[in-house]
């Protein structure tokens, strides 16, 4: 603790957070004025969109989390094969923007949808049903991943004890599993709810006249980008995330020792396994359907009238600048990946490997970004940075994405650092091994897997984000994901499908590459001894 040079680093990082998170946010909230409130309260549309948002998000959360529970149980508590493959397919939707899900759904179940015809429906599923379905499509994988993770850490001993005592399966579920899951379930529910309530991709694509808060915010933005009403919308959208954030803080960190005491081994059960297969396969088909539809629509002349093969949409996408925008996106994503990972890594190093008030304050600042939806973040940046040299550059997109996706990778590495012996730096000090050396020679080699995951997370998410960047990108810095918006507005289905497909493919390639890298790192951990 003596002669701690890490304080300089902490000051630097704090300045970064103050400029990139706290000040913009304060500015948004400061923009709220009484007149705008009055005005909004008199609009029936306002309370209607609040009601709509609440209804749609609550329903979506319920469905999404229930499905996630079902699927994660099927995978964790059965002996079915191909578990990894199911997991990969079920999480594929995480690699495409939410608007594509809405858009895909419209192609499947809209007025002229593929399935609408097949099923002989007379009307498409616009409005509430559509929003819920679309929201479930893209929020389900996240809930599923979180719950699978929790379930895979559960200890078998309580179940064994219960079985010995003759307690039946149902009582075991209510008495052991639910209490074990309850804490995580709260987090999952809040994450999903926040994600859905602040999303505008799905509602714009398939909401029809069913207007939700984010859509109202966007409409308001198009009318008057300086309006005080924007800030009110922003503040409301901030609420659920802030609640989730506070609950997360209050909740004592579940001490997970990093290894399973005794892994649960599902017993034999042919019927159960068959049922699990059925559930997994059905869900995989549902998940894959829109993706296959993208692939088909990208190369079909004019669905549903002319199904012949064409490269028109691909050419059109390129004509409209798709190649340039793709490069923009790749540049931004690569920069966010590297810069975001570097900042998150150093930040977690300070907060997890040093003690004191300053480091706790920095930790709080680091996870604050969790409470800011992309839409609100983008809005705050337009207000705070407009007129500055940063405005309208790729750099501001890099910053906004770094902050937008900061919390998850930060927490990944924060947890990794926390499992590593706390006395290493002290031992180093007595052996004349400096902190930077310990970081380089001991901590980094032990956290390389996490580093790779962080790089991948930042890249994939900035590749497909729309919310924050939609406010900030101009004609020179446009991101490819934003093209989906434009194509949608012009009813260019094929092009929108093609762009979604490109994003999926890029993300798949990146994810696979990082996955292979991680595996390789695991295999040849440095065993070398100095010559």
């Amino acid at each position, binding site marked *: 603790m*003596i002669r701690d040079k890490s304080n300089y680093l902490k000051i630097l990082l704090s300045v970064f957070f103050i400029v990139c998170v706290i000040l913009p946010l304060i500015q948004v909230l400061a923009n709220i004025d009484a007149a705008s409130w009055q005005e909004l309260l008199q609009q029936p549309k306002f309370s209607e969109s609040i009601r709509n948002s609440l209804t749609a998000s609550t329903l979506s959360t319920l469905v999404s989390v229930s499905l996630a529970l079902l699927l994660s149980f099927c995978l964790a508590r059965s002996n079915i094969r191909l578990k990894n493959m199911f997991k990969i397919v079920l999480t594929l939707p995480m690699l495409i923007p939410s608007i594509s899900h809405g858009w895909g759904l419209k192609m499947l179940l809209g007025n002229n949808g593929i399935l609408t015809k097949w099923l002989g429906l007379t009307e498409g599923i616009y409005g509430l049903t559509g929003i819920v379905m679309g929201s479930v499509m893209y929020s389900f994988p996240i809930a599923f991943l979180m719950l699978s993770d929790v379930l895979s850490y559960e200890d078998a001993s309580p179940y064994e004890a219960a079985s010995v005592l003759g307690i039946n399966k149902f009582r075991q579920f209510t008495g052991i599993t639910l209490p074990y899951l309850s804490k995580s379930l709260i987090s999952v529910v809040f994450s999903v709810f926040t994600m859905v309530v602040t999303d505008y991709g799905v509602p714009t694509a398939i909401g029809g006249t069913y207007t939700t808060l984010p859509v109202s915010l966007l409409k308001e933005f198009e009318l008057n980008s300086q309006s005080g009403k924007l800030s009110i919308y922003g503040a409301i959208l901030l609420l659920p995330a802030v609640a989730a954030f506070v609950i997360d803080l209050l909740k004592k960190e579940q001490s997970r020792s990093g290894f399973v005491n005794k892994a649960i081994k599902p017993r034999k059960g042919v019927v159960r396994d068959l049922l699990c297969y059925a559930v997994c396969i059905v869900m995989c088909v549902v998940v894959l359907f829109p993706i296959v539809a993208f692939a088909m629509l990208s190369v079909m002349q004019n669905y549903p009238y002319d199904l012949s093969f064409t490269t028109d949409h691909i050419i059109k996408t390129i004509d409209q600048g798709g190649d340039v925008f793709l490069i923009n996106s790749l540049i931004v994503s690569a920069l966010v990946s590297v810069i975001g990972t570097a900042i998150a890594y150093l930040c977690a190093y300070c907060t997890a490997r040093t003690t004191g008030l300053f480091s706790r304050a920095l930790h709080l600042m680091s996870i604050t970004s969790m409470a800011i939806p992309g839409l609100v973040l983008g809005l705050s940046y337009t207000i705070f940075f407009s007129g500055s040299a940063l405005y309208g550059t790729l750099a501001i997109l890099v910053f906004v994405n770094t902050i937008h996706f900061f919390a998850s990778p930060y927490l990944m590495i924060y947890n990794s650092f926390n499992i590593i*012996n706390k006395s290493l730096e002290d031992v180093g000090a007595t052996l004349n091994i400096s902190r930077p050396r310990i970081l380089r020679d001991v901590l980094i080699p032990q956290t390389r897997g996490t580093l790779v995951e962080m790089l991948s997370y930042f890249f994939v998410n900035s590749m497909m984000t729309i919310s924050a960047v939609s406010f900030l990108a101009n004609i020179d810095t446009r991101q490819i994901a934003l093209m989906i918006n434009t194509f949608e507005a012009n009813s260019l289905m094929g092009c929108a499908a093609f762009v979604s497909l490109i994003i999926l493919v890029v993300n798949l390639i990146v994810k696979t590459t990082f996955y292979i890298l991680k595996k390789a790192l695991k295999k040849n951990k440095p065993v070398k001894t*100095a010559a």
Partner: protein
Amino acid sequence: MENQNTKIVVNDLKVVLGRKTILENINFDVKDGEFLSILGPSGCGKTTILRVLIGLLNPTGGTVIKDGVDITKAAPSKRGMGIVFQNYALFENMTVLKNVEYALRLDKNRKAQSREIAMEMLKAVGLEAHAKKKPSRLSGGQQQRVAIARTLALNPDVILFDEPMSALDVDTRMILRDELKALQKRFGTTMIYITHDQEEAFAMSDRIMVMDNGVIHQIDTPENIIKNPANDYVRRFVVHNLQLKIDSLSRFSTVCVKGDESAQ
């Protein structure tokens, strides 16, 4: 013991963290080559004393003198001391050998012989056969031996131990006790040793320091502490506790002796 040189003198040590006074009026000295144990209930400030001695914590007041030199403000690595923690704190990504060698290689004067010294230290703790393994593949006792070898490698004249055996099973502790005493004899190192195990303290130490709540109640030889406890606290904490143990032990041994006799 009287004619031994004094290694460390601690004067009027005081440590305040936040608003809490952790240590006050701490005065003691340690003789060259001595084995001094520190006994006391949890939270009484034992670890804090070690952290001040080695320089990981700046005291609020007081001085630490080693070999006649005031080292209160010296950097931890410049004190000629080593420390061994309860949780080993090994570099998990390096082999056992590399763990011991790492600090040596960073030291210009010892870089050339680093491999040689490291192997010698591993031999001293009986681990030369495990040099190429990662620490995680060793038992707890073996890992602690690596930590000891790593500390010994820099040739400190004082080694501090913070409950080094608390995480080990009884058998391993018994063995490690003897090994540690043998190492002390061989290298002539002064050792200051925190433990919760009173029997361990009485078996290993030249002198024992009994602490409570940030103050020292008594520092004396094991015999004197039993014969002349300085106050009620020491009597209750140490003597009473130990008496119980001796009682149960002697009862146990009479049973054994009887058993042996009948077998003969």
